[in-house]
C-alpha cells in the first residue's frame, strides 16, 4: 500500500499529469504549425474554422465518452449523424413540416436508434460492437431511403415549396450567428454541451454509476445498480448528441447530405481515446475528450494548411492516435509504480 497520506493529492497529480501531457502536445503542434505555415495557421479566420470543426467533433465525442465509460461501444453514431441531418431536412424542406417539428423528429429518430442499440446490447445481450455495427448499416440504409440519396438545401427547396424567411434565418443562425466579440455560435453550443456532460458525468449520481458499471458490471448488478437502465440512457445520449451535432453542422453549411457522417467515426474515436477514455470502460472525462478533439482538429487543420493532401493527413492522424494511447499506457504504468 502506498504510504502516501495525501492520496487525493496523488490522484489529482495523476490526472493533472495526463492533462499537462495533452496540453503540451497541443502547444507543440500549435507552435509547429505556426512556424511551418508561416503564420497562416494563427490567422483568426483559420483558428475559428478549426474551433468550429472541433465543436461538432466534441459534441459527438461527449456522447461517445458516456457510452465508453459504461464499458460498451457505439459504432452507429456516424450513421445516426447522417440520418438525423436528412430526417430534419426531408421533413422540413420536402414534407413541409415546421422547422421545430423537423428538428424534434431528427432527435427522436436518434433516440430510437439509441434504444435499439440498448435493447440488443442489454436485453438480447449481444456484444454492443455487433449491435451498433449492425445498427449503423441499418440506419444508413434508412438514411438513403428517406433522402433518396439526394443532397438537400433549404436555400433551394423543391418546386412549389416556399420556406418561410423567418425559419430560414433561424436555421442559419443556429450555427452561423456571431456573438459579440466575433465568438461563433457553434462554439457556444459546444461549451454548453461540455457543461451539460461535465455535470452529468462528474457531478451527477448518474455519472458515478456509469463509471461503476464500466469498472465492474457484475459487481454493479450484485449491488443492484440498474445496469440496463443506465446503459440505455448512455446509448440514447450518444445518439442524441450525434443528432445535435448533425443539425448544427447542417445549419452551418446550409445543406443536408446523406453520407455526411461517414467520416466521423474515426476522428471521434481517436479524440475520445486520446482524451483518456478506456475502451474497457470505467474511465473517461469531458475535459479529456475536449482536449482530444482540439488536438485532432489542430492536426487536421494544420496538415490541410500545409497542403499535405488527404492521404498524408489520414496516415498522420492514425499514427498520432496510436502514439497517444501508447504514451499514455506507458506513463500510466510508470505512475502506478
Amino acid at each position: 500500500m502506498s504510504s502516501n497520506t495525501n492520496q487525493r493529492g496523488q490522484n489529482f497529480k495523476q490526472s493533472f499529469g495526463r492533462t499537462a501531457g495533452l496540453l503540451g502536445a497541443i502547444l507543440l503542434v500549435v507552435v509547429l504549425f505556426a512556424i511551418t505555415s508561416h503564420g497562416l495557421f494563427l490567422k483568426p479566420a483559420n483558428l475559428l474554422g478549426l474551433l468550429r470543426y472541433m465543436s461538432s467533433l466534441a459534441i459527438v465525442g461527449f456522447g461517445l465518452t458516456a457510452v465508453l465509460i459504461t464499458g460498451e461501444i457505439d459504432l452507429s453514431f456516424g450513421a445516426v449523424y447522417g440520418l438525423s441531418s436528412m430526417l430534419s431536412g426531408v421533413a422540413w424542406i420536402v414534407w413541409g413540416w415546421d422547422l421545430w417539428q423537423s428538428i424534434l423528429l431528427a432527435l427522436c429518430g436518434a433516440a430510437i436508434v439509441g434504444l435499439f442499440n440498448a435493447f440488443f446490447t442489454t436485453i438480447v445481450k449481444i456484444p454492443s460492437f455487433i449491435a451498433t455495427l449492425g445498427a449503423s448499416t441499418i440506419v444508413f440504409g434508412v438514411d438513403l431511403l428517406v433522402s433518396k440519396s439526394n443532397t438537400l438545401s433549404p436555400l433551394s427547396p423543391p418546386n412549389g415549396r416556399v420556406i418561410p424567411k423567418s425559419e430560414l434565418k433561424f436555421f442559419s443562425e443556429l450555427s452561423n450567428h456571431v456573438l459579440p466579440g466575433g465568438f461563433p455560435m457553434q462554439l457556444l453550443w459546444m461549451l454548453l454541451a461540455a457543461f451539460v456532460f461535465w455535470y452529468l458525468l462528474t457531478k451527477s449520481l448518474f455519472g458515478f454509476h456509469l463509471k461503476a458499471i464500466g469498472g465492474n458490471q457484475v459487481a454493479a448488478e450484485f449491488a443492484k445498480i440498474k445496469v440496463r437502465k443506465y446503459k440505455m440512457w448512455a446509448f440514447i445520449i450518444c445518439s442524441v448528441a450525434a443528432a445535435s451535432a448533425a443539425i448544427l453542422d447542417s445549419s452551418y453549411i446550409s445543406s443536408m447530405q446523406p453520407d455526411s457522417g461517414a467520416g466521423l467515426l474515426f476522428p471521434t474515436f481517436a479524440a475520445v481515446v486520446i482524451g483518456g477514455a478506456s475502451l474497457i470502460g470505467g474511465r473517461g472525462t469531458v475535459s479529456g475528450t475536449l482536449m482530444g478533439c482540439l488536438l485532432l482538429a489542430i492536426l487536421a487543420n494544420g496538415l490541410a494548411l500545409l497542403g499535405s493532401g488527404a492521404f498524408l493527413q489520414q496516415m498522420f492522424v492514425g499514427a498520432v492516435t496510436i502514439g497517444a494511447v501508447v504514451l499514455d499506457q506507458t506513463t500510466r504504468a510508470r505512475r502506478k509504480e
Partner: protein
Amino acid sequence: MISPNSSDKSGIRLEHLRKEYGDTIALEDLNLVARPGEILGIAGPNGAGKSTMVKILASETNQTSGTITLNGAPWDPREHKKQVAIVHQEPQLFANLTVAENILVGIEKSKYVRPKSSQVDQNLLNEVGLAEYAHRRLGSLPLAIQQRTEIAHALARSADVFLFDEPNSALTEEESSELFEWMHKLAKEGKIVFLVSHRLLELAAHCDRVVVIIDGNVKVEIKKNELTEERISRELMTGVANKRASLTHAGKNTKDLLQVSDWKHVDEAFKPLELSIMQGEILAVIGVEGSGGREIVRSLAGFAPTTGDIAMQESKGSAVTKQVAFVSGDRSSSLFSNLSVGENLYVRLENRIKTKLRTLSQSRARAIAESAKSEFLVRAASIDTPIRSLSGGNQQKVAIASALALKPQMIALEEPTRGVDISSKAEIYKLVREYVSQGNAAVFYCTEVSEVFDSADRAAVVFDGKIKKILDVTKFNDAESLAGAISQATAS
C-alpha cells in the same frame, strides 16, 4: 518444520517459500517436499495459501523469497513450464479445438503448419482412453474427458509434476474414481503428484501423505499410518482460532423476519423449501459447491430464478428480494477496481447521497464513507486510496461495509471471510453480529465448518438441493462436534 531424510534429494522441495501481495502475506514460510511415486495431499481452509502455492508451481506468479529445488538442483517453474501439469476443476484447454489438437498444442512439429491430428501418438491416446474422442471438439465433451485430455496433454509433453487442484468437484462419483486411478497410475510411473482438495475423505483415501497448510505455513504433515478423515478435519478445525467466545448469541429475539415457502429454483439447483430467518440471527447455509446452498442464498437477494413465496415484514415477492443486500464471495465481483475505497463504500447508495438536483453530494457521501471506514476498521490511508492497494481482508471489509451502508434489514453474504486473514475474520464476524443485533438478520453461504461455528446461530445443512437439517450452532462446544453433526446430516 519438516525435516525429510536430507540425503534423499529426489522430488520437489519448497524451502522457506514466501509470497506477499502488497500488505497481504499469502505464504509465510512454507516448507515441504513432494517425492516421485507418491501422492501428496494438500489441505487447508480457503485463503490459507494453497492456491498461491499452486500458482507458484504453475509459474503464474513467483515467490517473494524462498527456493524450489528439483532433485537437489535449483528449479524455477518459469523455465520449466512444460514439466508441470496442472489439472484444474475447469480444464484450461482450448474448447474450440479437437482433443487431438489440444494434445498437440505446445509440442507441434512445425512452427508454421497447422498440426495434423494424426501426429498424436496413438499409443498415448489408447492408453488414456481418448482414441474415440480424438477428433471431437473438446468443448462438446464431458468434463471428465476434458480433464483426461489435460492429463494426456501433459503426458505428451513428458511432464513430471502433476498438480491436481480440486479436480473432481464437478465430476460424478464414477468419473472421480476413474480420475483417482489416474493419479495412482501417474504416481506409480514415478511422477510427482499433488492433490489439492477440500474433500477430506478423498485426501485420506488416496494420498500417501497430507500436508495441512494454515495461514501460509505448513501446520502439520500427516503420515500414511495416521491418515484419516477425522485427523485432517481436526487439524483444519483447530487451526482456525475459535473466537466465538466474544459473540453474544441471539435467542432473545425470536420474531421471524423473512419467510420463504414453496421456494424453488427454476433450474432445480435446489428443490422446493420452507425457511424462516429470525430477527437478530445469522443463519449459515452450508453445503459443498453444487449442493444448491449458494443458489439458496443468492435467491433470497433475487439473484437466482425462483418460484414460490417470500415475505419480509409487510413486503412480499420481488419487493423483498430487492431489499436484501448481497455480497458475492468473489471480490472480483463485489468491488469496483476503478473506484477509490470511499467510492466503493457509497456506490450502492442512492437517496442518502443524492441532492435535489440529482447530483452526488460529495460531503454527505464522504461522511458516510469516513464513518463506514472507521466503524469497519478498514485499514487504508484514506478513503481516497485506490481499492486495489488494500489487503484482501480490508477489501472484504469494504465489500461488506458497502452493503451494510444501505441499512438493509437483511443481508446475504457468500463466504464472507474467504481469503481473509484471521484478525479481519474476527472483525467481520463481530461487525455483522452488531448489525444483526439491531433487529436485522444475515444469511451466509459457507463451505467451511469453522466459519459456521465462528459466526452463525443456526446452520442449514444443504445436500443435493435439499436442506437436510437445521442445526442450532450455539449448542455445540467445539467445531469438531459441529462438523460431525453436519456430516451426519448430509449422510442421512
